[in-house]
């Protein structure tokens, strides 16, 4: 698109653009600065204090003490570990699954394609609360459909206490997270596959490439930006996994499903000892944000190198 170079603009015109630009930005900026940017800075500030929910004592500035305590806090470290497992398992699984599903459905005819796309998107739309409520029943030790179906089929001898066993609880959460995460990547991959340059595909076929080769060498390469975007959003989503844990296990059994996100909430609102360590919880938030930032940057870098 041809645009007037900046230097050609007269000063009056530039001023006009400035005024108009900021006037159009104003309503959005009020909300963005007020409820996102300013809280972000307050969060960093708070993370260096010993603020609590009930301000009985004065708030003191304690520099990095929260961060030092944090990395000696076993529950936090366990939460960090669990968060990593969730991310490391669910991100590749979501990516691979949605890539396969999309490549299987993108050539189907219109109504069938949108039907499949809808079905895989449905768990997202249903909402985390409704999804969790029904999964909790399905996982139930006594009346759950999972146990009775598996015992009937002879896979299990007797029912498993899915959410009550530290060995299985985290995997149960990951499974639900998975079903609520694939919807968006599928939509994205379907549209990316549709946009792949057909001339390149045909050229490769003329050169005698197999379907599989065409897929990896031509299509996959062209979908890299989409994959990158999917990696980033899935990572962020997995880090934020909260509702599932709060509603299903509350971090239990024995911290087996504690995540950083849940521990932040727990520390800020549930910790009974001194009720609501806001400063400490904020320090965790800062650490989480740094981790997400680093991981996103790393993914960008890796994708660029390829």
């Amino acid at each position, binding site marked *: 698109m041809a645009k007037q170079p*900046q230097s050609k603009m007269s000063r009056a015109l*530039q001023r006009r653009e*400035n005024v*108009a*630009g900021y*006037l*159009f*930005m104003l*309503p959005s900026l009020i*909300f*963005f600065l*007020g409820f*996102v*940017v*300013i*809280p*972000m800075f*307050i*969060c960093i500030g*708070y993370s260096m204090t010993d603020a609590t929910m009930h301000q009985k004592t004065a708030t003191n500035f304690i520099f990095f003490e929260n961060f030092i305590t944090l990395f000696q806090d076993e529950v936090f470290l366990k939460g960090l570990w669990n968060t990593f497992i969730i991310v490391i398992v669910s991100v590749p699984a979501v990516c691979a699954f949605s890539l396969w*599903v999309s490549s*299987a459905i993108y050539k189907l005819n219109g109504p069938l394609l*949108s039907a*499949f*796309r809808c079905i*895989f*998107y*449905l768990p997202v*739309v*249903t*909402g*985390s*609360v*409704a*999804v969790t*409520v*029904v*999964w909790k*029943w399905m996982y139930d030790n006594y*009346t759950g459909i999972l146990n*009775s*179906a598996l015992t009937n089929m002879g896979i299990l001898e007797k029912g498993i206490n899915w959410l009550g066993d530290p060995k299985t609880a985290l995997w149960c959460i990951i499974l639900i997270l998975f*079903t609520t995460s694939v919807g*968006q990547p599928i*939509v994205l991959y379907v*549209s990316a596959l549709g946009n792949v340059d057909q001339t390149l595909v045909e050229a490769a076929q003329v050169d005698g490439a197999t379907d599989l080769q065409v897929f990896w060498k031509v299509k996959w390469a062209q979908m890299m930006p*989409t994959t990158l*975007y999917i990696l980033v959003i899935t990572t962020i989503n997995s880090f*934020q996994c909260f*509702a599932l844990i*709060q509603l299903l296990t509350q971090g239990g059994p024995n911290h087996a499903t504690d995540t950083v*996100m849940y521990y*932040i*909430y727990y520390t800020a*609102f549930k910790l009974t000892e001194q009720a609501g360590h*806001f400063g400490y919880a*904020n320090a965790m938030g800062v650490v*989480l*944000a740094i981790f997400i*930032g680093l991981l996103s940057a790393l993914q960008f870098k890796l994708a660029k190198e390829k």
Partner: protein
Amino acid sequence: MKIQNPRSRAYKIFSIIVLVVLAILFLFPLYWIITGAFKPAVDIYNSKPVWWPTEWVTTNFQNLFKKRTAPLFSFFGLEGPVAPGAFRWLINSVFMAVMAMILTCITAAMAGYALAKKRFMGRALLFSLIVCAMALPKQVILIPLLKEMSALKLYDTLWAVIFPTVGWPFGVFLMKQFSEGIPGEILEATRIDGASEAKTFVTVVLPMVKPGIGALAIFTFINSWNDYFMQLVMLASGENYTISLGIATLQAETTIDKGLLMAGAALASIPIITVFLIFQKYFTQGITMGAVKG
């Protein structure tokens, strides 16, 4: 036309079978919610799963509606007739999602247009700030937000959930993507014709970004409806609960009465699924446009 070899045909049949199985698995929770909501107690408590209700009953819904009562709405001291609490929760959810939707669409359409088409100073900086903020988990700023809301006397009102949703920069990003497509010549022509900035925006820009606004509207509505975390933190009294929050509280109270919970889950999810199915075309478009373009 390429002739298909038998192996690729076998793969095709295999993949269709797998897809159908997967689709059934993905639909199953919803099926279980809906049938569960209408099952009589004998089916619910049966240790062998009952695949189809032996009898369709509305007892679960009656129990749900009996559980709590609240005025249907309260608006500047004006209170509605007393009704089942679940209805109030639904009304709250609708109010919250609609307000978030309207405010987001207006502010994001204006800001997206400015970012795409106005060469004002600080534009690049502002845009990178917006992109960075999108990667930030919303929950990180939760505590400062909470403090802010109590200072503004908005804590425990639906506005405390609505405002941060509107501030979330995804909408601005999406509308910028859509506004990039407006041809500069048209804007130039309207300017030469002497139209004011406001008039240009309303008569030229808005009609051209309409699909974007549609996508953003449905996207915001669904996200705001399902944003359980924000609702959990910002809303304290039962009267201000949204339907998601209400059902979550019910679950904490009764873990045994699954029928009641399924009725609640159905009530929370059916409206939003209906909205999604009606507008899903816009929705798909929005998701795709929001992704990195170039």
